[in-house]
């Protein structure tokens, strides 16, 4: 339960981080480390290089732009949870971030890291998808905007290139009614299944390799969730229907 050997880099600017990422093979970005370090400890991840972005100053802002809220790479989930801007502009995000693990984890974990990690059972990718937000990726080749519906490509996979750094996530303002509801075995655990409602849009998490948009009138259509010791595929489909019903009852 100790990390495997790796070379450590700690750039101090975004430009330097991009240059380092461009120059290395098999590098992994370390932000909050609340997903990556367990993977290292379990030896499920064995990157040759760790690029720690925590030494980069002034990339932890949460600010309003283009009628929504932008969250930079090093903004901790706890800061998002406590942010008055997020609570006013995008209260759906405030509600969702409270469901991410526990406060002690959120003190360190970052919102952008959560998106880049792309765990299919995670709440925040589904929120980004339901609201139609985007992320901003930077590399030595420049900056590009990736819409939420293109970002997630598989289980813990995004279309981010190996040399790209996710520098910012942008969430449109959330309007009433909204809801984020999940079912998990224990408080703070990953959800067996969950739903995000943003007015008439519905995104599901925990039931497919990526978060998916679904029809609120028939949310389980076409889904083929996996079954495991925690929940059978059938039970996950049941949860999708029940949780969607709850989310759209209001």
């Amino acid at each position, binding site marked *: 339960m*100790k*990390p495997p050997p790796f070379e*450590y880099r700690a750039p101090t600017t975004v430009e330097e981080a991009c240059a380092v990422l461009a120059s290395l093979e098999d590098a992994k970005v370390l932000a909050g480390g609340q997903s990556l370090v367990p993977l290292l400890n379990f030896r499920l991840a064995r990157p040759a290089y760790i690029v720690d972005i925590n030494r980069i100053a002034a990339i932890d802002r949460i600010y309003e732009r283009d009628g929504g809220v932008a969250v930079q790479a090093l903004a901790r989930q706890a800061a998002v949870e406590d942010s008055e801007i997020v609570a006013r502009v995008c209260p759906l995000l405030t509600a969702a971030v409270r469901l991410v*693990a526990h406060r*002690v984890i959120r003190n360190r974990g970052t919102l952008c890291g959560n998106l880049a990690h792309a765990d299919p059972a995670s709440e925040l990718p589904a929120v980004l998808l339901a609201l139609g937000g985007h992320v901003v990726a930077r590399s030595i080749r420049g900056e590009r905007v990736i819409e939420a519906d293109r970002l997630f490509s598989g289980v813990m996979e995004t279309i981010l290139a190996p040399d790209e750094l996710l520098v910012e996530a942008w969430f449109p303002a959330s309007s009433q009614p909204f809801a984020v509801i999940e079912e998990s075995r224990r408080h*703070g655990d990953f959800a067996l299944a969950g739903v995000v409602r943003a007015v008439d849009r519905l995104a599901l998490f925990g039931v497919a390799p990526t978060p998916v948009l679904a029809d609120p009138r028939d949310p389980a259509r076409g889904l083929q969730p996996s079954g495991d010791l925690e929940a059978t595929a059938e039970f996950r489909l049941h949860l999708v229907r029940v949780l969607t019903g709850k989310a759209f009852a209001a």
Partner: protein
Amino acid sequence: MKVNSVVYPTPADPRRLLSDHLRHDLGLTGTHVGCEHGVCGCCTVLLDGAPVRSCLLLAVQAEGHEVTTIEGLASDAAPLHPVQQAFHECHGLQCGFCTPGFVLAVVGLLAQHPNPTPEQVDEGIAGNLCRCTGYASIRRAVHRAAELSQK
């Protein structure tokens, strides 16, 4: 890095976890190691005043930061920190393995909510596992700690 107000050199090996650095290099064995993947909460320490998992932090990441472990909690003036005093008074521990992590998580909880509601207490300690007490006495200890902290 500073640990309990004492400056220490940063370990050379980047894969050294902060939890192992505290225990094996600095001899601060009050930080307990349970699951080593962020679930149990035993290894919780304060990083610049906020509770974090020391098993999910590389020791090199603490360079330039202030770490507080259970050994550094009480002041010279008082043998026990108010949260430690409350756990003692309310029997908020049995075997004691999880206790350092609970105490530091509760310090963080009370900094965020000086007068926590029962729901906030449950939320605040939900990330720490105790296999002895059944949590009832820990909940009481948190409320007692809030009282003691305000005196």
